[in-house]
């Protein structure tokens, strides 16, 4: 029975691994921009294979919602593919003559795209795993549909942007990630008279006195990928002089990666001149203000409007009288009014400078965005109110919104993909408790390539990995999928952590695409608590032992993808019984505002209780270390806790292969320690049971699926063990086996060998020495 169950579990595990690989492959094809119809075909084929069904259909809802267009399929009758089916799901099932069917909906943002259906003529039902798998591939298709729409949109918007940029009188520019200008619009060229501004930093067009400051502002902002705003004097061709401009730069992202800035410069020369002239005389200010193209205003000490200039009235289409007092607020867009007014009142109460951006009613009937700024003015040392200027920023604002929207959309695709590539749930592994958490980064700025994974190695040890692909967005998520699969493959065949990491480094370095990743790869012997690990550019794992937390140092080397050849080191440690091991990505401990050492200390302090429920521990660690709000970067956290072995009974089913012997020894070692057996007894009992197991392995039918069972009990000072296999056990097979038998018979008090059901059962008994067994 045990054997059959283990066999079924093995089959399920293989099916899950195969399905995960299929999802990852589809995800990568979707990301590589594969044509949608090809992707649908590939998905239908993969679903048919993985679900073991005869028919799969990918159906797209027609625009009018009245039918379903068969976009792709496997095993569909002639005439169905490319045709429109009725929406009623029962119809297709009848037409196909299927016995059972499952479907999953393909959703893209703002659009219910359609469904993918799997039909079987032979199966009665589908499992939960089946529907989960189908929904996961449907999610990948949904993301791909969205991506295709997004690509069209980006192509359009790039063209639109340049067109728009050249028709607007505003000054516009774009830079690459290094800050060198890649594009300036017609407005900029006219203003500066510069044909040669492309390829150099924008600061070269600044007034010599402002250049250093301009560069500093740009460098600070671009290091943080932040928007910046800066006022400086820009070369002006027509006057052969410089004019004050305000420059606003917004970071640009493609596929989630920072690629530079897009910005506008607005002439604020009059405003600066006005502010200066006002200090001299109110009368000359008004005169000057009316000739200026900017929008200007003044208030009294009570904050009520006392003057607006011609430029303001031209914009609003109102009269001078209408604008006096507090009525300017009526022109502010209702959605902005509360924020704008409360900000203004606060500034006024403290006589601070005030600045805001809001939509103001335009004479055309629409609202248009303006940037408005007021500074307090004093007459003879007495507060006299504010003087303000407003400039129209409508086009800039729309451009920002569009960039933000594109960005948000991409973030969502990356997140969908990342979630579909992470383990759906952690595997259930006997003898260890596992828990994991993944948190995406804040505000969509940082969907990254963080991942975690757990697998059970053929030698009975458990391999754990957490990694972080450098970069963010779609590319990082796709690379993460590839690395995760590579670790699954190499982790199965290669025992040494350093060798696994070295092999993946070679794989990455020989690849076409440049990928860099930090990884912590660790192999745990759950019986002895021995761990071997390699930290490739990754922070150290944390052990929460009963006597306190500590980091596992050593095994450090460069990140994957950084150098070739590279030396990857490995370190070992033994977890004290009752320990919990925490693996995490640097999003948990790395922050600009605090040194790493301090963050590591905080993490160690956050997890002092080794007996806490594992999932609770993960949540509390995240809450304590990250504090309120979302993390800046994404965070993956994996916790593992070896469970104490049962003390009076062992029941194990192991594959009939030599590697199982080491695992059996580990298990016996813990058990025998617990019985209080002496060192000699521990060795001799272990040896005899393993000799019997060795016979089972040698005589197993074929490689692969064969297994053997070991049962051990300790009752009233006596150890009772049995080893059962399904092969024939010969009494003497040359000298070597003869020696094995001699060992078993001489070291045990009683040995019996029985044949049963084509297999062999060896029973052994031995009394352990009284004083130690007590």
């Amino acid at each position, binding site marked *: 029975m045990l054997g059959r169950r283990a066999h079924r579990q093995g089959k399920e595990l293989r099916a899950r691994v195969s399905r995960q690989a299929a999802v990852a492959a589809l995800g990568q094809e979707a990301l590589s921009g594969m044509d949608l119809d090809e992707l649908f075909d590939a998905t239908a084929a993969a679903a048919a294979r993985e679900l073991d069904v005869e028919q799969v259909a990918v159906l797209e809802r027609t625009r009018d919602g009245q039918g379903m267009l068969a976009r792709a399929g496997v095993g569909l009758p002639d005439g169905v593919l490319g045709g429109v089916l009725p929406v009623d799901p029962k119809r297709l099932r009848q037409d196909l003559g299927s016995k059972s069917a499952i479907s999953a909906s393909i959703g893209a943002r703002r659009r219910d795209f359609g469904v993918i259906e799997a039909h079987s003529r032979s199966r009665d039902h589908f499992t939960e795993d089946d529907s989960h798998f189908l929904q996961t591939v449907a999610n990948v298709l949904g993301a791909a549909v969205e991506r295709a729409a997004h690509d069209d949109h980006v192509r359009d918007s790039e063209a639109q942007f340049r067109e728009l940029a050249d028709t607007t009188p505003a000054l516009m520019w774009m830079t690459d990630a290094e800050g060198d200008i890649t594009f300036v619009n017609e407005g900029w060229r006219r203003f500066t008279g510069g044909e040669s501004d492309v390829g150099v930093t924008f600061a070269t067009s600044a007034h010599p006195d402002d250049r250093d400051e301009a560069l500093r502002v740009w460098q600070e902002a671009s290091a943080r990928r932040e928007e910046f705003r800066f006022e400086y004097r820009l070369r002006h061709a027509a006057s052969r002089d410089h004019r004050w401009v305000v420059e606003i730069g917004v970071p640009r992202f493609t596929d989630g990666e920072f690629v530079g800035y897009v910005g506008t410069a607005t002439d604020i020369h009059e405003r600066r001149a006005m502010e200066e002239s006002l200090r001299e005389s109110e009368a000359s200010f008004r005169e000057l203000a009316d000739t200026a193209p900017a929008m200007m205003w003044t208030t009294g000490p009570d904050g009520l409007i006392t003057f607006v200039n011609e430029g303001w009235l031209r914009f609003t289409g109102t009269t001078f009288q209408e604008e006096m007092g507090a009525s300017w607020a009526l022109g502010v867009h209702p959605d902005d009014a509360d924020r704008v007014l409360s900000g203004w009142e606060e500034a006024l109460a403290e006589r601070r400078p005030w600045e805001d951006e809001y939509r103001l009613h335009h004479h055309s009937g629409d609202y248009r965005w303006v940037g408005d700024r007021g500074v307090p003015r004093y007459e003879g040392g007495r507060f006299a109110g504010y003087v303000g200027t407003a400039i129209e920023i409508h086009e800039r604002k729309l451009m920002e919104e569009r960039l933000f929207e594109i960005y948000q959309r991409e973030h969502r695709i990356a997140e969908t993909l990342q979630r579909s590539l992470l383990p759906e749930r952690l595997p259930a592994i006997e003898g260890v408790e596992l828990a994991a958490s993944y948190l995406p980064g804040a505000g969509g700025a940082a969907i990254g390539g963080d991942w975690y994974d757990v697998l059970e190695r053929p030698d009975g040890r458990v391999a754990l990995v957490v990694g972080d692909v450098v970069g963010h967005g779609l590319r990082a998520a796709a690379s993460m999928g590839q690395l995760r699969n590579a670790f699954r493959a190499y982790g199965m065949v290669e025992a040494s952590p350093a060798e696994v990491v070295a092999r993946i480094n070679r794989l990455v370095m020989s690849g076409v695409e440049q990928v860099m990743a930090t990884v912590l790869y660790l192999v745990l012997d759950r019986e002895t608590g021995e761990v071997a690990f390699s930290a490739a550019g990754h922070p150290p794992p944390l052990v929460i032992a009963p006597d306190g937390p500590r980091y596992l140092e050593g095994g450090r080397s460069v990140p994957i993808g950084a150098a070739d050849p590279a030396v990857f080191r490995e370190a070992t440690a033994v977890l004290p019984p009752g320990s919990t091991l925490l693996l995490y990505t640097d999003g948990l401990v790395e922050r600009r505002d605090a040194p790493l050492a301090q963050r590591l200390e905080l993490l160690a302090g956050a997890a002092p209780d080794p007996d806490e429920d594992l999932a609770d521990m993960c949540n509390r660690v995240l809450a304590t270390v990250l504090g309120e709000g979302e993390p800046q970067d994404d965070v993956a956290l994996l916790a593992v806790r070896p469970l104490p072995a049962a003390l009076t009974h062992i029941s194990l089913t192991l594959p009939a292969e*030599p590697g199982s012997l080491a695992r059996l020894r580990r298990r016996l070692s813990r058990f025998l320690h617990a019985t209080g057996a002496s060192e*000699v007894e521990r060795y001799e009992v272990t040896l005899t049971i*393993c000799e019997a197991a*060795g016979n089972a392995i040698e005589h197993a039918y074929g490689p692969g699926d064969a297994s053997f069972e070991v049962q051990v009990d300790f009752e009233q000072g006596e150890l009772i063990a049995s080893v059962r296999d399904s092969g024939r056990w010969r009494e003497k097979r040359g*000298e070597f086996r003869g020696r094995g038998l001699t060992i078993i018979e001489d070291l045990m008090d009683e040995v019996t060998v029985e044949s049963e059901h084509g297999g062999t059962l060896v029973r052994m008994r031995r009394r352990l020495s009284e004083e130690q067994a007590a």
Partner: protein
Amino acid sequence: MSSPAEIVLDRRGGSVVARLSGEVDMSNAAYVREQLLASTPNDALALVLDVSGCRYLDSAAIEVLFDVSRRLGRRRQELRLVMPPTSPLRRVIELTEVHTAAPLYESLESALSE
């Protein structure tokens, strides 16, 4: 996967000293045999195998001891075994009569002073 075993080699006069540590069973016995035979050059008089650091030897490992002794014997070389009297492996070594193929010594010094 193989069980973990490590061999550290040392030349002492006419003898090669091999310190075997870890665990030897059917998964790595063949490897251990290759290593022992390859590390004993023709000009050596004896291979002194120190198993003091061994945690586990099974019948496959014992078979290796017999086999290495036989092969060295053909080259007129001797296999000597070092095992402290307190070793938990002692009874099994005696039971399988390994001493008929390789003389047993209680310390490395006594094995080398022969």
